[in-house]
């Protein structure tokens, strides 16, 4: 039976606590991957696992990866695609948990724009962030026999107001929160999740330094156990999870955070236990990235995902041991 903060573990207290730094790969918000850590901290799960965890955030550029590689942090978050690409770059990183079983990158169009399916993208202006055409867009278009030649690609920033004001027809979003923000402006929209159109995507992972995974699996296990418990608590008591988030994101809109958490919880659902992943999922992602030229390097064994540790935390019924 899952422990809760109410009944602290007897084994926890005597051990000297180990210092661990977790840096969330973006600013504080209610991504399940973040919330899991917030609650693990809040409810003392980390302590029970013998960890003294410092939680940091990054601006969503690549500094969290640099910090991980510099061993300033032991754990961070990255999308499945990022994990795969960096791993293929030969950098010593491994994903030790996969939260989002599907990617959180999608697209929105105004409901009154007559854009209902990816096929309707034809001839419309499609926004792309940071100048890179994502594989999932290419894949989604390919699914309906289109290429990026058939749409007008338009670099857009990180501010949906340009979409709300009609500067672009189709806008790239983080499905978890941006649709909510856009609807708040009174704009009715249709959302497009590539996964719904058979595109293989993966969401956020926990990333660890390869050395840590190899030399110190117990540390990884302890961190995962604590955060998985946090995630479970988040699933049971989402309001507490949002409250915990707001401690890190003072002034954020609770409703929007709740929306994000719910979306992530839905995306994290998995019969054999949250955070796990199958080799097939990763192979499918790899295939997509290779097909659309995002991944050009070979992916050496054993692959970006280390599933054994998290697997060892679950029993046959997918319950946390």
């Amino acid at each position, binding site marked *: 039976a899952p422990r809760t903060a109410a009944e602290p573990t007897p084994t926890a207290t005597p051990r000297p606590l180990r210092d661990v730094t977790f840096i969330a790969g973006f600013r504080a918000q209610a991504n399940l991957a973040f919330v899991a850590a917030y609650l693990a901290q809040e409810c003392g799960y980390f302590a029970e696992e013998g960890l003294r965890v410092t939680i940091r955030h990054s*601006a*969503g550029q690549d*500094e969290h990866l640099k910090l991980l590689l510099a061993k*300033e942090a032991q754990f961070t978050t990255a999308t499945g695609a990022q994990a795969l690409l960096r791993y293929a770059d030969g950098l010593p990183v491994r994903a030790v948990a996969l939260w989002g079983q599907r990617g959180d990158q999608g697209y929105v169009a105004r409901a009154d724009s007559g854009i209902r399916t990816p096929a309707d993208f034809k001839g419309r202006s499609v926004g792309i962030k940071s100048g890179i055409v994502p594989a999932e867009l290419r894949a989604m278009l390919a699914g309906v026999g289109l290429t990026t030649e058939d749409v007008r690609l338009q670099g857009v920033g990180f501010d949906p107001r340009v979409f709300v*004001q009609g500067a672009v027809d189709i806008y790239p979003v983080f499905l978890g929160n941006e649709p909510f923000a856009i609807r708040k402006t009174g704009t009715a929209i249709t959302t497009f999740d590539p996964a719904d159109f058979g595109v293989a995507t993966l969401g956020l992972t926990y990333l660890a330094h390869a050395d840590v995974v190899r030399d110190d699996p117990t540390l990884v296990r302890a961190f995962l156990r604590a955060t998985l418990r946090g995630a479970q608590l988040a699933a049971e008591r989402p309001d507490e999870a949002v409250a915990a988030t707001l401690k890190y994101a003072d*002034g954020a809109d609770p409703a929007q955070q709740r929306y994000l958490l719910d979306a992530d919880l839905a995306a994290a659902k998995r019969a054999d236990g949250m955070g796990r992943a199958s080799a097939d999922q990763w192979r499918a992602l790899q295939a997509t990235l290779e097909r659309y030229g995002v991944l050009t390097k070979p992916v050496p064994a054993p692959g970006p995902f280390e599933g054994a540790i998290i697997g060892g935390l679950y029993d046959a019924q997918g319950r946390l041991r």
Partner: protein
Amino acid sequence: MTAEEPQSARREHVTPTATSNAPTPRAPARPEASTLRSLLPPLLALAVTLVAWEAYIRAAEVPLYLVPAPSDVVAVLARTPGRFAAAGFTSLIEALGGLAVGAGAAFAVAVVMAHSRPLERALYPLALLVKVTPVVAVAPLFIIWFGFGAAPKVLIAALITFFPMLVNAVTGLRSVPPAALDVFRALDASPWQTFRLLRVPASLPYVVAALKISVPLSLIGAVVAEWMSGDGGVGQIILIANSSLDTASLFAAVVVLAVLAVALTGAIALVERRLLSWHESAEVQ
């Protein structure tokens, strides 16, 4: 204005008239009086701007998520004043730290550059390189090297304020009246005495000017640094507001920055009054 244009380089005199009159016109204007006079126009201008803005927003029915009306901004500030105050304080401390570090370092380098033209020419392009390096390129390094918390933010603010202070300090340290320099040398003053008693005081007006320029820069620096390390201060308020299209909070944050900038500039102006009452600029201001 031109009518009373002071006459160019009026020759000075020692007649009784002069000795009794001359000081009077030269003495700087009464502070409190001038302060009041100098405060009125900007307040007026501000009021006008705000009213016009509010009116436009209402007339054109600009949606809140796009541009808030002043009233919206005030409302946000009023709802959680503590939050904005705290954030402002955090950023202020970082900015001040950055100002201190950046100005200090720049002045030190300026001492070297002022010492010889070739050295100045040698170092200037490097300073320029520092100047054009986008913060994002170095911020992660700073975090890696100096950990999280205030240190990297202060250093980023320092980085941004470094350049203007350098340029002015070099000019200032060079702006020594040659006649005074002659006197020092005729009295066999040591280099250290000349530096301490002559060059440094002579450079003060330029240093103060640079500080004024650097105030907004240091605040911007602190904010950008806060984005990079994704926590604390006005920077975070802006980030969060941005993510939820909360433009009212966004502009409120900007208002906080503006207030801080004006306050700091005012503080410097006060220091200037006390410290540089001897300087010509004291007259015109």
